[in-house]
């Protein structure tokens, strides 16, 4: 009896956190879903209804399909670059020791926690027409016209890489640190070359973890708003830019809600897949 009472009381400790999430996350998301079915009646007004018009428009109008494809394309590019460039870095840091390792980890954690708007501003100064890179290249005589680098897909990719790199690196580091390194040593002892033991053992064992890092990078890159809104080209819009505009300037909340909810569903299905892969990876490790 006492035990039962105690167990019920355990849940109280989670109450403040769970109530906040329930009232200010789940309820608003449900309301978002409800509004996404409303009917827009122009000039920022709408009627309660049950219409799929917003979703139908978003997934059939060629204008929006182009936006969806562009967003996916950019997110895929960012995911692949971050994995290919991030893996060697994570590997080096895992292998490093002492002060070197601590400094590397610090250099990842500082950008991770530095506010994103500030970092985007830094890219303005680096990539701008009179920015650091252009002036450097002009002075060196490599170019005689400033390169247009800002407000292009290029600058969006740079900005998104800046967002996802710290996360991808930390996920990859924890994946590599959790690995059974004795197997790699065994491969080396059995005569495998350095490259072969790396590729056949280290790399293949880490594939599920790399996939998880990739899925996270993809979701982050897809949903990011500040980067494409400040670094993007006017003609090339992403899903989140479209959401922001519908809510803030067009004031078509039902349509904005339909797009936002679609984006949320895409993110959730990707994260669901990552959860599945993590479990698959655990089974793989046990086998």
């Amino acid at each position: 009896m006492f035990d039962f009472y105690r167990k019920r009381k355990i849940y109280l400790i989670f109450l403040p956190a769970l109530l906040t999430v329930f009232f200010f996350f789940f309820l608003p998301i449900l309301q978002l879903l409800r509004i996404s079915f409303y009917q827009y009646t122009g000039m920022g007004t709408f009627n309660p209804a049950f219409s799929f018009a917003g979703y139908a428009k978003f997934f059939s109008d060629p204008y929006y399909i182009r936006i969806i494809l562009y967003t996916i394309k950019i997110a895929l590019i960012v995911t692949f670059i971050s994995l290919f460039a991030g893996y060697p870095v994570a590997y080096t840091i895992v292998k490093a020791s002492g002060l070197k390792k601590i400094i590397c980890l610090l250099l990842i954690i500082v950008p991770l926690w530095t506010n994103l708007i500030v970092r985007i501003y830094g890219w303005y100064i680096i990539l701008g027409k009179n920015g650091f890179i252009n002036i450097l290249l002009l002075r060196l005589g490599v170019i005689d016209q400033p390169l247009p680098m800002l407000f292009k897909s290029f600058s969006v990719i740079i900005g998104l890489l800046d967002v996802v790199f710290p996360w991808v690196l930390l996920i990859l580091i924890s994946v590599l640190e959790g690995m059974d390194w004795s197997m790699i040593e065994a491969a080396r002892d059995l005569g495998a070359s350095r490259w072969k033991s790396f590729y056949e053992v280290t790399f293949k064992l880490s594939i599920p973890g790399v996939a998880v890092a990739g899925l996270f990078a993809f979701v982050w890159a897809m949903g990011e708003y500040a980067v494409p809104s400040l670094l993007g080209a006017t003609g090339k819009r992403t899903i989140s830019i479209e959401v922001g505009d519908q809510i803030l300037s067009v004031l078509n909340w039902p349509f904005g809600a339909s797009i936002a909810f679609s984006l949320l569903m895409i993110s959730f299905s990707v994260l669901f897949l990552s959860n599945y892969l993590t479990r698959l990876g655990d089974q793989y490790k046990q086998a």
Partner: protein
Amino acid sequence: MLGGIKKKKIDWIGIFFGVMTVMVLGFILSPILIIVLVSFNSGDYIVFPLEGLSLRWYRAFIDNYIWRMVFKNSLIVAVPTMLFSTFAGALAALGYMKYRFRGRNAVNLMVMVPFLVPGIIIGISLLMFVHKIGLAGTVTSVVLGHSLWAIPTVFLVVQAALTGYDFSVEDAARDLGAGPIKTFFLITLPCIRTGVFTAMLFSFITSFGEFNIALFLTAPDTMTMPVQIWNSLKYEVNPIIAAVSTVMIVTTVSAIAVGARLIGIQKMSHM
């Protein structure tokens, strides 16, 4: 040992990996370093090479009414967010680490889920929600929005700090006759206070620098610093932003330095 005689082969993979490490870490640090550098620029515009060094843009920041207001607004949002999310998140982390119970994974998922959702979706769904409940444009709405991200932050930091903490000392205290409240204040709290303090710092910087949620929830008079930076960047690249940004960078770096000292960099990177 014949190993020493054998000619050492050049470790190409090692060199390639080393170069990649320098490049990637350099890449993510470059925007931060360049801002700190140009914030001390003495010219009217940001042009390279810099004309000279001065503190004029910091002076301009302090003298400017709007920047002062948004700085104050950021603090007005970040301090309550820090207090509330540390309370809610640290309790949740304690319970999560201490007890094994049915639904433990569900609790973890519930607390963490807002962290995994794009900021713009949290921003707009809360905007619609606070309109409905009459909190639109208030500081409270921004604090609640930021808490959705600050609570998971605290939850992770306190969990990281609690690894290695032996909960059986609490049982020992109870067996020796201490009540639950006495046990908490005399045993649990002293043991976890560095973790909780670090979590406070991180929940503060989570809120202080947050943009996506604040953009949708703030009104002109409750606008926070990142939102004002966003507004300025839309129209002009004013050097004051570099000074403002450097203040935010220094805040973040100090919080990390204290956190690294208190709970260790390894634990911080394993969250």
